[in-house]
């Protein structure tokens, strides 16, 4: 198939009120809300309906329902979230999130969700790192699956209602499976539609819609070791950038300390934190329990300094300090990284995580059944007898599209974002369990925001035909360059992953990141000329060629922002600036696109937190994060208020 | 033929009716052979009308194939519940109960699987195309009658009670003294297995509590359901074990009754 033959093709054309790109938790919740507001809604997904990455979430969905501990409320949840994000969070988002999460979870029950129960029949809640009280609604270790299936079934239920009313299941909600969006259209500065292709046929499709909700998830596929699936190519981030929207906090990536490193097929897949909580210890190739060497000064009086004391903690946590294996995620990830770099790693480039020495096989099977099966089936390792090999894995991006907290709208009118692809909510580090609740709270708000935005329009912006032609040509570019002998996109992709993994990974240095930026420029040139073989029907190398430019743009934002932020905070660790700096707390790094494959970075002042929210914290704690100037001002306001 | 190899519906065009490389044909073949052998043995024994009771010995072993022995042709001591069936050569002495036992097993959810696969080849094994042009399953007569399984289960419970009675009676010798021999142990083991098979029935699981939606409101029935569910997970094993135990029990009693061997006595 040649490009010229294809440009003359008839392009399938749809018109909707709201188009939701992405069918994970956020996208589906947004679509449900838009439909409940009476809007004709399209759901577009790169995979099949119901396969989104949300299924990978295990732990649970944080919501201060107070079912297990009645002391819990939204204020405690809010404070935990801010603390976890090192106070860089958009406080308004964190506030809305903490306040609305319980309603969003209860709502799921009316859709048919079956959470685990407390003895009095309420939704059970479990403890998790960073949460003061048991707070995570869960279903065993498959909460994400329950969430996605419930939302999927709610959409089917709405379609059944529409069928009963109109005779057509798809009169209000239509799902476009295996469809990739490559371009957003704007007319007079407002969103007017989008463009993409059906993966099975390779045929193009165009959607005219005044409101688009991005819910495309994360960017993990820019890294070589990640717990993310192939879909996580930062599509929403890149689409937003190219449409003129901005990204914030892109320097903050969460690396989970324990991912599988062997066999290659599962490299990066998560090994749950509970393994360490239940007594798993980390050792290097010399058999040394190395975490004792990595206890930073601020943690010295909180963690055990000898193996004997650490061992006693498991049975007597009140009178002993916790073992250093349970340091925060970033600390453990850095330590493992350092051991491997020093040549004390395991044969496959990780360290050993051993739970067999402390727990009996029966206890392991009871407490960690899915981990046992994961290692048994995928790695042929019996964790009741042998240690696991683990290493850090790229897990979650805190950064994302800059949005208005209440409506989810970006700086581009008509463009909304929710879930992992939006930014601000989690600050510099996300607490476990806060992502599922994030999806629900802001998915709904985006659906509502989009519906209200559509209602407020006088006239719908019309898609420019010239834009459609340009989008078609860009999508077909990899076939055109095939004649000129470009590179295989898989090769360029691997190069990109390697660059990001090695040079903008867990521990960052100025010179390495400068090198990374140079390499990214080089990769940008190569990515523009990658070529593909075969036709357009379900052709994975064409798909990758198009995804590649998204990953590239996003990687540039990550690298530039990481180079700019000269401090260490949450998911951003600088070897050359190892401490947190209150001056940097006030600063957001905002990324915008310059042309097809370059980005611009600007600083933006953080909006000061509302005084009543600041009052939820002790002054001693605030002093660690805020400048004296900020707090002085707050005290003055508070005193004024008292008068 | 099978749609699997028929490309008209847009399926991948592959001529082979299966690409399985393992010995998928073995389990259905094995099951077919074992079931045929068992049915052959049981048929011969049911119509034999001899060597079903230890008439010449001091103890009372009655084979389950002849229990309850309702025919006027039965040895009087073997008929615990009276005699009223005519003694015709083509009428098994236990003609009242045998059909129910047969139907209980014939409509059993496990045996259905086994014989649909082994005899009907529907399907012979998973992902192996079946040879039939059409398929309606259990949607119409006669197979819709499989839904009557629970009535045969009720009958099987009554018959199991009778079998249990036979086992108890067998501990009392003809002279009224207590007796214990290998035959008693075999009869006892057999009846325990028969109970286990009967209780583990899927219909039983439903009746006990499976049909409830609120286990929490019926704690005792829930407990019973949990127990039945555990047994139910072994329904297949129990189905085969009871076929074996029935055959062994019957054969042992036949051998003792015919005088080929003498019972190993422990007491009396």
């Amino acid at each position: 198939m040649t490009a010229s033959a294809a440009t003359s093709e008839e392009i399938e054309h749809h018109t909707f009120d709201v188009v939701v790109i992405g069918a994970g938790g956020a996208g589906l919740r947004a679509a449900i809300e838009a439909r409940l507001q009476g809007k004709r809604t399209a759901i577009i997904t790169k995979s099949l309906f119901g396969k989104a990455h949300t299924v990978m979430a295990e732990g649970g969905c944080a919501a201060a329902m107070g079912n297990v501990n009645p002391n819990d409320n939204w204020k405690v949840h809010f404070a935990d979230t801010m603390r976890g994000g090192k106070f860089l969070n958009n406080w308004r988002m964190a506030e809305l999130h903490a306040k609305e999460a319980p309603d969003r979870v209860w709502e799921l029950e009316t859709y048919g969700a079956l959470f685990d129960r407390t003895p009095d029949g309420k939704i059970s809640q479990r403890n998790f790192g960073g949460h003061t009280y048991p707070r995570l609604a869960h279903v065993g270790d498959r909460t994400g699956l329950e969430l996605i299936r419930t939302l999927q079934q709610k959409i089917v239920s709405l379609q059944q209602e529409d069928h009963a009313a109109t005779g057509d299941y798809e009169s209000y909600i239509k799902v476009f499976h295996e469809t990739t969006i490559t371009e957003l259209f704007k007319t007079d500065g407002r969103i007017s539609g989008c463009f993409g292709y059906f993966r099975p046929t390779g045929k193009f499709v165009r959607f005219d819609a005044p409101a688009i909700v991005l819910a495309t998830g994360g960017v993990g596929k820019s890294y070589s070791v990640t717990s993310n699936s192939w879909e996580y190519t930062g599509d929403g981030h890149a689409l937003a950038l190219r449409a003129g929207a901005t990204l914030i906090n892109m320097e903050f990536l969460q690396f989970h300390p324990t991912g599988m490193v062997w066999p290659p097929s599962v490299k990066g897949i998560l090994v749950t934190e509970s393994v360490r909580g239940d007594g798993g210890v980390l050792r290097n190739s010399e058999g040394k329990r190395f975490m004792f060497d990595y206890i930073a000064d601020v943690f010295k009086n909180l963690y055990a300094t000898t193996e004997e004391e650490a061992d006693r903690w498991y049975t007597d946590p009140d009178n002993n300090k916790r073992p250093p294996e349970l340091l925060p995620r970033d600390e453990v990830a850095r330590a493992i990284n350092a051991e491997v770099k020093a040549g004390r790693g395991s044969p496959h480039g990780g360290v050993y995580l051993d739970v067999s020495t402390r727990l009996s096989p029966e206890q392991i099977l009871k407490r960690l059944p899915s981990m046992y099966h994961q290692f048994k089936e995928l790695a042929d390792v019996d964790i009741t007898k042998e240690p696991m090999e683990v290493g850090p894995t790229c897990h979650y991006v805190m950064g994302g599209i800059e949005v208005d907290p209440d409506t989810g709208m970006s700086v581009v009118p008509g463009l909304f974002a929710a879930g992992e692809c939006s930014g601000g909510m989690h600050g510099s580090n996300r607490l476990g369990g806060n992502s599922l609740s994030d999806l629900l709270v802001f998915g709904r708000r985006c659906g509502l925001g989009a519906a209200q935005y559509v209602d407020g329009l006088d006239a719908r912006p019309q898609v420019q035909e010239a834009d459609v032609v340009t989008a078609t040509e860009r999508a077909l570019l990899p076939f055109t360059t095939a004649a000129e002998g470009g590179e295989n996109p898989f090769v360029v992709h691997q190069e990109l992953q390697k660059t990001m993994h090695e040079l903008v990974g867990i521990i960052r240095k100025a010179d390495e990141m400068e090198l990374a930026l140079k390499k990214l420029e080089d990769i940008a040139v190569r990515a523009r000329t990658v070529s593909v073989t075969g036709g357009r029907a379900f052709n994975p190398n064409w798909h990758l060629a198009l995804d590649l430019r998204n990953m590239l743009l996003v990687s540039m934002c990550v690298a530039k922002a990481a180079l700019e932020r000269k401090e260490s905070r949450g998911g951003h660790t600088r070897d050359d600036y190892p401490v947190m700096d209150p001056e940097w707390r006030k600063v957001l790094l905002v990324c915008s696109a310059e042309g097809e494959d370059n980005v611009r970075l600007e600083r933006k002042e953080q909006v000061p937190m509302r005084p009543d929210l600041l009052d939820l914290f002790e002054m001693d704690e605030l002093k660690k994060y805020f400048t004296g100037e900020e707090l002085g001002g707050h005290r003055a306001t508070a005193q004024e208020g008292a008068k | 033929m099978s749609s699997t190899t028929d490309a008209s519906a847009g399926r991948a065009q592959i001529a082979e009716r299966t690409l399985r490389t393992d010995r998928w044909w073995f389990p259905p073949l094995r099951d077919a052979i074992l079931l045929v052998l068992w049915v052959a043995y049981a048929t011969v024994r049911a119509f034999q009308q001899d060597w079903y009771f230890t008439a010449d010995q001091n103890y009372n072993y009655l084979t389950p194939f002849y229990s309850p022995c309702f025919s006027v042709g039965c040895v009087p001591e073997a008929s615990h519940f009276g005699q009223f069936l005519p003694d015709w050569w083509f009428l098994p002495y236990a003609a009242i109960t045998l059909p129910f036992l047969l139907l209980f097993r014939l409509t059993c959810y496990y045996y259905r699987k086994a014989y649909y696969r082994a005899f009907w080849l529907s399907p012979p094994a998973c992902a192996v195309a079946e040879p039939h042009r059409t398929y309606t399953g259990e949607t119409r007569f006669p197979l819709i009658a499989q839904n009557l399984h629970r009535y045969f289960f009720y009958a099987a419970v009554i018959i199991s009670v009778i079998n249990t009675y036979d086992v108890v009676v067998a501990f009392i010798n003809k002279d009224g003294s207590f007796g214990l021999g290998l035959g008693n142990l075999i009869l006892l083991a057999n009846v325990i297995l028969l109970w286990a098979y009967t209780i583990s029935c899927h219909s039983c699981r439903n009746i006990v509590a499976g049909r409830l939606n609120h286990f929490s409101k019926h704690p005792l029935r829930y407990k019973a359901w949990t127990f039945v569910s555990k047994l139910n997970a072994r329904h297949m094993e129990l189905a085969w074990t009871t076929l074996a135990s029935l055959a062994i029990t019957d054969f042992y009693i036949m051998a003792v009754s015919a005088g080929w061997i003498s019972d190993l006595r422990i007491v009396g």
Partner: protein
Amino acid sequence: MSYWARFRVWRGDSEKGELVDYPVEVNEGEVVLDVVHRLQQTEAPDLAVRWNCKAGKCGSCSMEINGRPRLACMTRMNTFAEDEVVTITPLRTFPVIRDLVTDVSFNYTKAREVPAFAPPPDLKPGEYRMQQVDVERSQEFRKCIECYLCQNTCHVVRDHEENKQHFAGPRYLMRIAELDMHPLDAADRKRAAQEEHGLGFCNITKCCTEVCPENIKITDNALIPLKERVVDRKYDPLIWLGNKIFKRGDVRAAKQ
């Protein structure tokens, strides 16, 4: 450590297709999906395959490996001998799109035909109270990752295309069972299970259970209990009589 395996991969579309032989390198610890990816990166860049999580959690990479319906990401290469030819084909019950990718829309159609959860009219969000023992059965069925291996392997539709219209398949009959056992669902689904969704087609030959990667006991815990519930409703004169006499014919009572 590594060796060269012989792979036979079905390449083609709905018009035509054939098994193509590929020699391909296999490294220690790999699964079939890794080898498919290696083929994409080397000899067959346009080889179509569906996959997502690569950890057996999303149910995308369903295919038939040596004739057995399986997830490619959960099939380890060391389950084959090094000299064994590994044949992989698309699912054979659904129309093929290209290579290893099939059109699974049958399943979405069937999903839409099962009436959704009917929330109790008298309870508001947050007021739901359910006991753990009452939700556990349905929770087992909700482990389903919708890989459609059971739908693919069930001979009712695999061997008889004409039954597709009348038969929901194991996955959606299980969905009916899940809702029927839900402690708060307000709908009655038994009659419809038999009359509209084709429960009677199931002859409980258990292939759905055999291929389920989540080890859900589909036949024993969902399909047979559902059949028994249908018997309660349709074929049991004792229960019918009891309901007549005690006037318990209404839906809620029947569900207790």
